[in-house]
């Protein structure tokens, strides 16, 4: 069985601060990882994904994530957050058969 855990339920930062959201997964097969974001009043949308190759993945809006196999982690980072990054962020894993499991999400509030 696969599982995903996100360490922080709510993170509050000031603009220009650096961001790192933790994500750990548990799965014995091929690892396929992603981050989705949900801005206030909007749909869930893909931020970035890792399925193979370079473990440092770059996504939209300046976000990146690093897959560290030894730590079973896929943390999301951004060097300088903006007020518009206020949203809920979901880490997840998908099996090769296409079954997705999401974490419980982290709410990010960026103060202007």
């Amino acid at each position: 069985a696969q599982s995903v855990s996100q360490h922080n339920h709510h993170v509050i930062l000031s603009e220009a601060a650096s961001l790192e959201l933790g994500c750990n997964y548990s799965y014995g097969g091929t690892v396929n990882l992603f981050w989705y974001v949900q801005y206030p009043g909007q749909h869930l949308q893909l931020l970035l994904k890792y399925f193979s190759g370079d473990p440092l993945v770059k996504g939209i809006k300046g976000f990146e994530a690093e897959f560290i196999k030894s730590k079973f982690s896929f943390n999301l980072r951004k060097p300088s957050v903006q007020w518009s990054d206020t949203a809920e962020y979901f880490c997840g894993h998908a099996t090769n058969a296409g079954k997705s499991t999401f974490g419980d999400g982290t709410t990010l509030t960026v103060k202007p």
Partner: protein
Amino acid sequence: EAGVVQSPRYKIIEKKQPVAFWCNPISGHNTLYWYLQNLGQGPELLIRYENEEAVDDSQLPKDRFSAERLKGVDSTLKIQPAELGDSAVYLCASSLGGRVGNEQFFGPGTRLTVL
């Protein structure tokens, strides 16, 4: 390009009543997903369709939940009878094929309240 459409956006019913949710995926997307999202949690897969075939319904509570995807396009998710614990957001998503690398596009969801 139109996104995934869901209706209704909100539904309030009394327990033991039936309820149905409708989803229209992005044109050309043959894979369709229904998720359940409880407050403070991430989406949980209920069922996944490849065209009109349900390829993963292992998490669907079949005693009260049912789903169909006639002609491999629109889909309906039904609950009968609804229970208090069914109050949640029901999300529909679609993708261009069920391969793991394909992005899922989500609809706005239907927020169900069972009284």
